[in-house]
């Protein structure tokens, strides 16, 4: 019989057509603007391609996603910001695009250098998000941010006030990295204490 193949093909099309409606009913009201909806639409189980309704919903970024660097500070008890950076300048030396500028801080009373940056600038319009600064920093003071909504009307030179973010923010965006680093830090401190204890005793 002629035309069998056409009928078969039309059957497949009809099946797909019905399936789209069944899928719509199954995901009624939760396909968009919900985390499980985004996860389903991005997974391999989904049928078809779906738009991320960007300003209203955002595609979750992986933990290792990196955009622009930022500086970490520890929050003190009185709300003071204890910056981790010691202005050693390793990040500026490691930066392939040379977009980091650091000014070493000085004690205003004595005029001697202190391990704190007086100024820290990153030219975000030069930075190519390689993450070398974060890799090389021995103090875990500079890390890569997840925030990509940084478009501006002028050249985007980020100064120290813009760059500083609390450690809690870092723990929020990179929980696994944070846990690993904290563990390493504690182990190091314990080893230091164990080494110091017999010497004292």
């Amino acid at each position, binding site marked *: 019989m002629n035309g069998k193949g056409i009928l078969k093909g039309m059957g497949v099309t009809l099946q797909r057509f019905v399936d789209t409606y069944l899928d719509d009913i199954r995901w009624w009201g939760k396909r968009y603007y919900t985390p499980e909806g985004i996860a389903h639409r991005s997974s391999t189980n989904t049928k078809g*391609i*779906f*738009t*991320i*309704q*960007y*300003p209203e919903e*955002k*595609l979750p970024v992986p933990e290792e996603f990196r*955009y*622009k660097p930022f500086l970490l500070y520890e929050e003190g008890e009185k709300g003071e910001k204890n910056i981790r950076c010691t202005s050693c300048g390793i990040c500026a030396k490691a930066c*392939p*695009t040379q977009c980091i500028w650091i000014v070493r801080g000085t004690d205003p009373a004595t005029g001697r250098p202190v391990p704190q940056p007086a100024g820290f600038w990153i*030219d*975000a*319009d*030069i*930075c*190519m*998000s*390689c993450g070398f600064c974060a890799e090389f920093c021995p103090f875990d003071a500079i890390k890569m941010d997840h925030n*990509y*909504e*940084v*478009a*501006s*009307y*002028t*050249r*985007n030179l980020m100064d120290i006030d813009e760059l500083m973010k609390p450690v809690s923010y870092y723990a929020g965006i990179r929980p696994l990295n944070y846990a690993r680093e904290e563990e390493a830090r504690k182990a190091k401190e314990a080893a230091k204490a164990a080494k110091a204890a017999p010497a004292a005793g």
Partner: protein
Amino acid sequence: MKDEDLRDLNLPGYEIPPELAGQLAITTLDRVYNFGRRSSIWPMMFGLACCAIEMICAQAGRYDMARFGMEVMRPSPRQSDVMIVAGTVTKKMMPAIVRLYNQMAEPKYVVAMGACASGGGPFKEGYNVVAGIDKYLPVDVYIPGCPPTPQALVAGMIKLQEKIDKQSIKHVRWYDGKKEDSVAVAIPYLGPDLIDPRRIPEIKAKSMELAQPPAPAAEA
């Protein structure tokens, strides 16, 4: 009147004070005018480097810039509103880009997408790369990133929409009779790195000469 005041006027539900009643029509017109412009920003279709891939991705189904009326990539500068300079701009390309910008009809905007277009990126001290197109073109929005993700590009385009929302029909340069209708930028000449096509025969002759050394003098 300041930009902030105008933006407030453009918001719905704003009570017009009596001293501004005479301007009621013009501010309403602003809203309509800006709504039309912000909802049909047609970009020019050209990409220069890897950022162009992200721009293509932002135009495709997953991020779908058509939701903002930016889906019509025009192949002609005469029909486009915004120039997304996506990628590394070499010195050879810069005169062409400036010429395209001059050919665009007002209102025209420039978006520098990515590190290379904004500031030169890793090639900022390169011998053949322009360290930031803002040296030659008036850039409206800078989008940092290397390359910016499609969502970052969309965020930048929303920023451009916000800029358009703040403009007033009373003050825009293309309706102001006193100013030039259109901004024309002088086409730059970027030094000896640029190959001068008029010298191509000369260069060709020299290279031919180097490739084929002259036959040794006939034996005596």
